[in-house]
């Protein structure tokens, strides 16, 4: 006879479902400025409180406070703001283009713009970012041509990916943006290898890689963490915790009992947990980890806490699994509004400038979309068929050549 109750299987469930009141009580948000800022050379063992804290810089009134407030030129902040605004307008336009049948697919990054725009400006030229598919603001912050993005989304003759890739799966080597793929997490270890190569060559470049909260459950995440730790790879490994992996809340990924930043502890890597909607905090944490990596002290794990405001993709309807007003209830606000308030508080920005910029960016996006549409949307004016057989290998083998001929004469 057993003298204890029978076992029961625990299935994590989000705190609110459709029709219920949004509930973020599972998250704790320390005040801006509260988190301490250890020296970059501090041993990991002396930083084990950090993954349970939250690095925040921007106060309610827009001031930057506390030890993490970075020294960033107002010009850089304005670039970041511009990149985030451009991303949001671009997302809206391309989402609409999907509804108009001009492309097969799109994914917005609404609410998460700071997590890519700030690292883009904090990294140095020559560093390499291994992004997720929700990080176009990284490219926006580096003035990557909108035409390339539009043509890629429309898979037209000018698509830099030659019509081979789903929309959003960009590659921009010259901009420090590694080739994307649809499968999640499998580039995380590439970043570690890239960083190991830099160290092997006694270079000064570092790598930065991103996965979402859901993807931390993939074996790739563990493999990358082990290798980064073992070889002290100069890499910044990031988890963008936007609370949702399609319809699964972050508790299903293992976030119910701990933080994703705390995953670093088991690998001996410093773990920072950062307000992902705070441009300055994201910038400062990236810079801290970058300095640590460049000082040959190895990898850092950063969790950016944010919220996926939009649906997962054009194929998703979030109202079927979460409260429709959950995004509005998100306690960390909107990254664009918060940076705007900061710049205004600094006296480096104004409502009038903001409106003027918004109009200019709207027009820029409109013009780029029009130009791309003129070149061709999905199915119109695609790249030549022969492109299908290029780049399988450096030099096509006889199969590529035979099949190319077969395809070109096919009715």
């Amino acid at each position, binding site marked *: 006879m057993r003298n204890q109750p029978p076992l029961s299987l625990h299935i994590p469930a989000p705190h609110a479902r459709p029709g219920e009141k949004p509930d973020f009580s599972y998250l704790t948000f320390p005040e801006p400025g509260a988190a301490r800022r250890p020296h970059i050379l501090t041993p990991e063992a002396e930083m084990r409180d950090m993954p349970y804290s939250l690095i925040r810089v921007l106060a309610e009134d827009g001031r930057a406070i506390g030890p993490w407030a970075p020294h960033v030129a107002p010009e850089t902040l304005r670039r970041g703001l511009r990149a985030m605004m451009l991303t949001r307008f671009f997302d809206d336009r391309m989402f609409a283009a999907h509804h108009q049948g001009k492309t097969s697919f799109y994914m917005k990054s609404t609410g998460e713009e700071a997590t890519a725009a700030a690292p883009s400006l904090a990294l140095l030229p020559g560093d390499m970012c291994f992004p997720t598919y929700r990080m176009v603001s990284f490219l926006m912050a580096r003035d990557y041509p909108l035409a390339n993005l539009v043509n890629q989304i429309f898979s037209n003759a000018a698509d830099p990916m030659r019509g081979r890739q789903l929309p959003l799966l960009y590659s921009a080597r010259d901009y420090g943006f*590694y080739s994307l793929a649809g499968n999640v997490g*499998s580039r995380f*270890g*590439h970043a*570690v*290898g890239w960083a190991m190569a830099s160290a092997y060559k006694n270079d000064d470049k570092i790598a930065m890689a991103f996965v979402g909260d859901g993807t931390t459950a993939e074996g790739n995440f563990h493999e990358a963490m082990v290798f980064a730790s073992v070889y002290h790879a100069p890499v910044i490994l990031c988890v963008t915790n936007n609370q949702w992996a399609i319809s699964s809340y972050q508790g299903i990924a293992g976030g119910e009992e701990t933080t994703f930043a705390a995953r670093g502890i088991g690998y001996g890597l410093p773990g920072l947990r950062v307000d992902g909607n705070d441009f300055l905090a994201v910038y400062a944490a990236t810079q801290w980890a970058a300095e640590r990596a460049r000082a040959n002290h190895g990898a850092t794990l950063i969790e950016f806490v944010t919220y996926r405001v939009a649906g997962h993709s054009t194929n998703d309807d979030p109202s079927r699994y979460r409260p429709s007003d959950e995004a509005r209830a998100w306690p960390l606000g909107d990254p664009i509004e918060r940076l705007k308030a900061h710049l205004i508080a600094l006296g480096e920005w104004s409502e009038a400038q903001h409106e003027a910029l918004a109009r200019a960016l709207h027009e820029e996006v409109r013009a780029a979309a029009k130009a791309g549409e003129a070149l061709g949307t999905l199915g119109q004016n695609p790249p030549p068929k022969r492109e299908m057989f290029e*780049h*399988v*290998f*450096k030099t096509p083998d006889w199969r590529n050549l035979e099949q190319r001929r077969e395809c070109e004469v096919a009715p």
Partner: protein
Amino acid sequence: MSEMSMIQAIHSALDVMLGRDPNVLIFGEDVGYFGGVFRATEGLQAKHGPTRCFDTPLSEGGIVATAIGMGAYGLRPVVEIQFADYILPAYDQLVSEAARLRYRSGGEFWAPITVRAPYGGGIFGGQTHSASPEALFTHVAGLKTVIPATPYDAKGLLISAIEDDDPVIFLEPKRIYNGPFDGRHDQPARPWTGQEGSEVPEDYYKVALGSAAIRRQGRAVSVLAYGTMVHVALRAAEESGIDAEVIDLRSLVPLDIDTITASVNKTGRCVIVHEATRYSGFGAELSALVQERCFYRLEAPITRVTGWDTPYPHAFEWDYFPGPQRVAEGLRRALEA
């Protein structure tokens, strides 16, 4: 020139490439200080330094992932998977990443990596030390697959693989690491000394990927083989007295289709031999290619002699392994029709 076993030839290729190209580095499980469980990397760490040849965590996925990242940076990593049977945790990296990186990025990034893995049976290795997974790689667009059958080829092909800008799966038939094996397990093992293909230049040379070698000229039937099975096929031809033309494919991708079709068009008959299981094995592709290209010259159905469609068993080693008697029987079948 000096006489080398296949393992020495592989070791020599790695040593030569470490010496020639500072972008070449080697890593894998136990390959560093210890020199590898098959001694392929013995002494390389001491000679070239610990950052050129080092040990890794037990993580095939991690090994290949980091190699791809290094390749993207500009290095030429050569990694070892201890047994081909254990390559599967790296399969996602090989299929989804290494094979497609150049294609999907429009040529912006590529993976000039070489993945060495001892493979094949005939050693009482049981289910996880004997497998021949080549078809898992030949089926993947963007991967090259290479299998040597002699020490000379092993070194020359490995150097070609390392210098190749595409990802290469380099499968090493471990049964013939130390001597050629013709399937006559009842006879004493022979060393490579004195055997054809064991004279190996000490310095740099290449054997081009995509070129087959005709190991025995013949008129009666074409035998398509690679790895250990080349030696088995030669033995089968000798024992059966059948004038077989034995072709060592050397690389499965890219495949030397011209040598194959020329031979089958000459003999009118074709026997395909591999250790791997039959169903959807690489032999099926070879059979289809020969059928498509040589149909009007064929005088008999194409015959396959392969491992059975079972996991590789331990106690039934010699019932499973396609030995010279089974291959000779295949040759006779091809001649009877």
